[in-house]
């Protein structure tokens, strides 16, 4: 069983389009995250949700909107896609706060043309 899954794995789209990436975890964790890894491989946190509530929102454009329908799901919707949004997006989950290990999904490679 996959612990943290993301769909789609690859996403190729035109500038200006709106797209969504879905994430699900079956670990029973109460905290989920979205990260962006750019072409230079820097991994940066974008959002964090704890028990469906937003607790971290780094400096991310308003075009990015996370949605957590329940504790097991955290989706990422991106409006008006730009070239600079091209990256690999990782979803992760952990149990509680205070540095518990994070389990990462396989990533979604987004390419904006």
């Amino acid at each position: 069983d996959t612990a943290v899954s993301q769909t789609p794995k690859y996403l190729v789209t035109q500038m200006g389009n709106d797209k969504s990436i879905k994430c699900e975890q079956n670990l029973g964790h109460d905290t989920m995250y979205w990260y962006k890894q750019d072409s230079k491989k820097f991994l940066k946190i974008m959002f964090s949700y704890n028990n469906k509530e937003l607790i971290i929102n780094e400096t991310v454009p308003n075009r990015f909107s996370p949605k957590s329908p329940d504790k097991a799901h955290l989706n990422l919707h991106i409006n008006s896609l730009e070239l600079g949004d091209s990256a690999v997006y990782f979803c992760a989950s952990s149990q509680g706060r205070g540095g518990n290990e994070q389990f990462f999904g396989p990533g979604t490679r987004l390419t904006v043309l």
Partner: protein
Amino acid sequence: SQKIEQNSEALNIQEGKTATLTCNYTNYSPAYLQWYRQDPGRGPVFLLLIRENEKEKRKERLKVTFDTTLKQSLFHITASQPADSATYLCALGPGQNFVFGPGTRLSVLP
């Protein structure tokens, strides 16, 4: 501003030797530090956690040290194997405001 550096972008060592990776930070007082392994095309995988009041942690062939005075963590892989080749990331945080380092790409040569 917070800054995290890992000793080098790439490190090559011979099989059987000990690999030592460094994570340095400035303008930050982390409560804990974690090390992750990332293989190409995959998400990071957790390896070890060490807290600010701990000096050293071990897990099989892995050892991590944490020196809050030097603001540095060392990550050692003893008896390295080609299968250890990957990118290793350190991550620091209080709570869940994680900050990842840029990573070191380790290649273990047979």
